Each structure stands twice: as structure tokens, then as C-alpha cells.
């Protein structure tokens, strides 16, 4: 009898708490960002396609579905670390197919060589190239993400990627690398 009572009491308590928990989980459900959205927010949005996906969003969706997180070359180690934090995994090193050098660059059209073929315009994922057929093209440097997708299609090789220069405005207090003048 005692055993039965115990079972009944415990069982009903379990039921009660279960019901409360179930109710709470429905009632207080927090609609979080879907994982893909969160990953997308961490990606550098260069839309370069170096990960093998046509843009950052598709890669973010792929990551959410289990794709390796170390394929974003422009983001580099930092981005990998952030995604790893988000996914709760160890950050793997950058995929070895990519350059580890992810210093920011911007595309530049050598204007005297440009023949106005518009191929780069079609390649640019963020519409950062101005120009029309037979007219010299130019790059809106502020819009350029440095993805270098325009370099390949150029028939006359007139697009170069130039690193963004260090200026007093974007200098990061790297005191150890100041060019100190050596006097004799």
C-alpha cells in the first residue's frame, strides 16, 4: 500500500511538474534568430564566393546545415573563432586552400588599360563598379568589399587589388612597429 502511495504521489508530482515545464516552454518561448542568420551576421559580407558558395548568406545557411566553418578567407581566424563560439565548437584553422593573408584590400582599375567590356561589372557582387560599354570603368572604393571576383574576368588584366593603406586614422596603436629612424 505504502509503495503504491509513493508511486502515485511521485507519479502525479512528476506529471504536474512536467506539465508546468511544458507550459513554460511554450509560454516563454524565445524566438531566437535562426542559426543561419546569426552566422550570416558574423561573416564579413564580402560576397567573394571563396568558400564555394555564391555569397555569404548561402555559406551561412550551409554552415547552419553542417558545412565546415573554416572556409571564409576574408574573415580569417577572427571570423572562424566567432562562428566557433556561436556553434560551441573548437575553432579549426583556416581551410588550407585559402591564403591566410586576409589583410583588407580594395580593387583598383588601371584606367588607361580598361577597354570598357563590362565583364567586371557583371562579376561584382555589390555593384561597386561604374561604367558602361566601351566606356572606361571605375571602382567605387567605399563600396568595394575586396572580394577580387572582378580580377579574373577582366580580359586585359587591368584590375589590381591594392591593400588599404595605414593612415593615422585607422592606425591601431601598434607601438612596436613604428618605423623608428636609426641614426648612426
Amino acid at each position: 500500500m505504502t509503495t503504491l502511495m509513493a508511486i502515485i504521489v511521485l507519479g502525479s508530482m512528476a506529471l504536474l511538474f512536467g506539465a508546468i515545464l511544458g507550459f513554460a516552454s511554450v509560454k516563454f518561448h524565445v524566438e531566437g534568430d535562426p542559426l543561419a542568420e546569426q552566422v550570416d551576421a558574423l561573416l564579413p559580407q564580402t560576397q567573394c564566393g571563396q568558400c564555394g558558395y555564391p555569397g555569404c548568406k548561402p555559406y551561412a545557411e550551409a554552415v547552419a546545415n553542417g558545412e565546415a566553418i573554416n572556409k571564409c578567407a576574408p574573415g580569417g581566424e577572427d571570423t572562424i573563432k566567432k562562428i566557433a563560439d556561436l556553434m560551441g565548437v573548437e575553432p579549426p584553422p583556416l581551410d588550407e586552400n585559402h591564403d591566410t593573408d586576409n589583410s583588407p584590400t580594395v580593387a583598383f582599375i588601371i584606367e588607361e588599360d580598361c577597354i570598357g567590356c563590362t565583364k567586371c561589372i557583371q562579376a561584382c557582387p555589390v555593384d561597386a563598379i561604374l561604367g558602361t560599354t566601351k566606356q572606361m570603368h571605375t571602382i567605387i572604393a567605399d563600396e568595394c568589399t575586396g572580394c577580387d571576383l572582378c580580377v579574373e574576368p577582366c580580359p586585359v588584366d587591368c584590375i589590381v587589388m591594392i591593400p588599404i593603406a595605414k593612415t593615422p586614422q585607422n592606425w591601431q596603436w601598434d607601438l612596436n612597429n613604428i618605423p623608428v629612424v636609426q641614426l648612426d
Partner: protein
Amino acid sequence: MGSVIERIKRGHFWTFHGGIHPPEQKFLTTDKPIRAVSIPEQLILPLQQHIGISADLQVNVGDKVLKGQALTKSTHPMAVPIHAPTSGTITAIKNAVIAHPSGLSELCLFITPDGEDRWRERKICTDLAKLTDNDLIDKISSAGISGMGGAGFPTQVKVSTHEKIKFLIINAAECEPYITADDLLIREHSPSILDGINILDSILSPEHILIGIEDNKPEAIKVLQQTTANNEKIQVCVLPTKYPTGGEKQLIQILTGQEVPAGVLPSSLGIVMQNIATCFAIADAVINDIPLIKRVVTVSGQALQKPQNVWSLLGTPVGYLLEQCGYPNKDKKHIIMGGPMMGYSLPTDQVPVVKTTNCILAPSEIEISSPYSTGTREVECIRCGQCSDVCPAQLLPQELQWSAKAKDHQQLNKLNLFDCIECGACAYVCPSQIPLVNYYRIAKSEIRQQTQLDIKAEHAKVRFEARKERLTRDKIAREEKQRAAAAARKARMNSGTTEAKSEMSAVAQALARVKAKKAQTKVQAPINQETPTANVAQKSQVAAAIARAKAKKLAAQQNIAVEKTILVDQNTDTSKPAVDKKAKIAAAVAKAKARKFADKAHVKNVNVDDKPIDDKVEQVSNTEKTLVDKKAKIAAAVAKAKARKLAEQQAKLAATPSNEITNEKPKSEST
């Protein structure tokens, strides 16, 4: 409001949190008058010497300039012009190391003085009352005056505020150790300073003018009190010496008891602060028409034999001033621009004096053997909390330090990192000798950069999405159009009119033609002239583009197979005229240039176009032979363009018959 003034009159002030008392070391220079130094052999003038943007250059290399002549100009309020400090020649305009902690180079004007020190024409103003406020602001603006205390905020922006000003605070606190430039300036030029204050008074018309000065400058205080004795509006406020009293926010708190809310300018509280040296410069500019071309610089430090305040022309290299003050040649030079608390080390002594340079410090090694010089004596934080006890912004430096090391930007923002004024009090007292300020500065610049990147990424994302949307929209529109066209045609054909019948027969003919074309595989099908031109004309541009693309593919394939023979023919044809060497070079360059763009078939096209190239080449040989390279390039580009045109034409020809079919059955076997 009256209570604030009553309090001040009683000599009672508020206080700010924390603060430190570093050794003042002002005795080194405070007992000597300001010395005028001779004009150096070369002046280096960075285009930008203040916070904001640089103005537009007005001179060229080789120009002769007169003393006081404006070298840059701009109408932008944040752009402050610079002026020639003496007469001479512009010898270079190039990048040189500027007065910035980074030691990076920016655009500088190099002036070689002619020694005559000849002025441009000056309009000395005798009656201030005649000038309107706008005239005064214009004069301040064109004299290139920016804050001379350290930050270098354009003065005309500060004085053209529209807020109702209660307090004009003149900052003469000079709380940094060693620096005595303002002290000496007050002692020697107090009438001019008063003129400057009066000018500011007439522009801003504040209710009260407070001069904040630390009590370690008794002579300057006396002079100020005498000079301002018969002006009821001006209060000389003698403040207890404590670093950083001279910080804008701290001085406001001491004098008025108010805190400037984060992210807000003091003018919103009805307060404007000006450095006392700026007042002097304003008086000079407005009354004597002397733009900001010189300033008092404290050259101090125990490594110098004759530390003294000097009148230095802007652009004077630091090394020249040090030399004038007896700087021995040591193995290890440590030169600091600014005071010991907030100044920065210079990477070379060719850095010029700029508008914000108030001190050049050459300490001996015993004097300042900062633990931060070597960077090796940092030990772990023991959370002693001394840093937060001295922080004038009431931050928690130890927690900031951990978050900065962990790069936890979110937490740093939560701890109000950006309220740090980088005064260095925390690092000064830290027993673990952690270079706290440096951690904060790195963290700040990283956060700023990250914010920039985030904005850029968001922007890129938007543009990418917009582009994707546009492409899909175009595609849908194209398909829609095709469908509509097909439906319309079907409807017409089924309507039973004669037109429809003819159209039907046209379609039938076209189908027949296609069949015929398919049958003739060896030779390219002659183009049927009966193709309904109306239909062709109706073709949308989009369809044409598709056709072109398809045709290109087609042409490429066909060309390989079919036109090999033609290629041979053409080659034999073109080899008849004597192709000289230049033509060959031109062709080669063209080929190389076109390599990526054109496949094998296109290469052939270049050959097809040999004739126009030859024309060009003839022109070339007729003109200059030295320009061969350039001409060849042009020729190549022309060749390429022609080649592409040709390819397109061919493609069109080849594709036209299949076009109708494409319209009806988008995925027909047109290849």
C-alpha cells in the same frame, strides 16, 4: 546659477573623482622668459594639424610664398587652413612623418625660408567695435586657429555655436607636469590674452567668464588678476593642483559642478571652453592680422642643458629646437611630444612643431625610466583598485583591462571604455605596472575599426541582396515577356486571319529552314533572306543578349569544326601583303592581351582582322617609330574590339535562324 558664481567668488570649487599628483617639474622652465629662436633651414608643414579634415592645397612646388600667406583653403568648417610661417620657397610637397603617435607619414609642405621674413599685406584692425560677430568668426577661421591645448578642435566651430552660453571657461590649468608654456604666455602677454577673451566675449556673449588656473602658477595668477581687475564678468579661479584638472570635462566639473553627459558637447550645457593660448592667437589674428604661424613650446627635460620656453614657428623640426636648447648626442634618444602623462614618443627628430604642440620633452634616463618604455615589467593585475580610485572618469580600469585583453568589445562598451580620456592616471599608479592606457587605446581603435567593418558588411549585404533581387527580377521579367510574346503569337495564329496564316506559314517555313540547316552540316547555312524582319525587330534586347550568348557558344564550337578551312584561306589571303615586323609585334601584343578573353576561335578572328591592323601599322610607320609600343597597344585594343564585333556578328548570323525556336521552346536543341 548665481550660486555657482557666489561659490566661486568665495573660492569654493567642486572636485572631480580621483586624480593624481605626479612630480610637477615645472621649475625647469618657469623662471626663464620665452626665447625667440632663429628661423630654421627648413620648415615642414603638415597639411592637417588639427581634428577634422585637411583643406585644399593652394600652392605648388617652386612657388614663392610670403609670411602669413595661406597655403591651403577650404570652406568646410572642419577644415582649417595653414599659413606660411615665414617667407620662402616651397621646395617639396611630399609625405613626411607627422606629429602623431603612429609615426606615419602624411602630406607635408616643405618650405625653405629665404631669411627675409617678408610679410604679406596686413590689415591691422584698430577698432574692434566695427567688426560684426561674423567678421570676427571669419577672421578666426581664415587665420587657421584650432585649439592649442592638445586636441586641436577647430576654434571657429566652437565659437559659432548657437546655444545660449552661460559660461565661457578659459583653460589655463596646464596640469601636465613640465609644461609652462601657458604660464609664461600669461606672464608676458596678458594684455593680448585679455583682448582675445574680449573678442570671444563679444562673439559668444556669455553670462560669466571663468579663467581656471592651478595654484602652482602664482605669478601668472597675479598677472591675470591685475589684468582682469576692472572686468566684473571675468573671474580668475585659482584651483588646487591636481592632474588632470586641465581636462575639459574635469575643469567644467570643478568650476560649475556639472558633468558633461556622455556623447554631448559642453555647449549644450551652455559652456564653451577655450585654451588660454588660443585666446592669444585669436587676438593676434583679429587685431594684428597674424594667422596662427607660431606658438610657445616648452622645451624641457633634464637631458637638456638649457631647457626653456621658445617661440617656435609652426613647422620647425623638433630636432632644431632641441639643438637650440642644448641636447647632447646620446645613444638612446627619448623625445616626447606633449607632457609626460599624455604625450607620445617621437620616432625621429624631424617631426615638425604643429598647432597642438605645447611641449617637447627630452628626459634623462633617470628622470623618466618609465616601466612602459621597456614593456617587460608588467605583472598580473592584483585588483588593488588603485586605478579606479584615481580615474577622473570613474571607470573601472582593472575590469577594462581584462576585457581589453580578452577583446570583449561588448563588455568594454558596457564599461564605458569610450569615456576614458586617456589621461594616464591609472597607469601612473598601477603597482603591477600595466600599460593600461595603451590597452585601452588599442581596444578603442579595434572597436572603431570593427564598427566600420560592421557598417561596411551590412552595407555590402544590402547591396548584394539588392543586386540579387534585381537579377531575379530581370529574369522573371524576361521569362514573362517571352511567355507573353509566345502567347500573343499563338493567339494570332489561331485567330484565322490572313496575317495569322502567313505567320503560320512563316513559322512553318522557319521550321523547314531549321530542318534544312540541320541537314547541311558541312557548310554554313546561307541565311534565308525571307526571315520575317518584323519579328526580328520585335525582339527584346534581353532576347538578343541571350541569343548573343548562345551564339557565341555556337560560334565557338562551329568555328573550331567548320571554319578551320576558312582560317587557312584567310591566312593565305592576308599573307599576300607584306606583313612587316611591326605588324607582327602588334599582332603578338594583341594576341597576348586578348588571350583570356578570346578562345581559339577568337584568335582566328584577330587574324581575320589583320587588314585593319595593317592600316594602323602603316599609320604608325608613317609617324613615329619610337612610339611603336603605344601604337601597337592601341592597335591591339582596336583589333580586339573588332574581333569581338566580328565574332558577335558571326554569332548573330549563325544564331538568327534558331532564334524563333528559342522563343517558342526555350530549351530547344539549338546547338
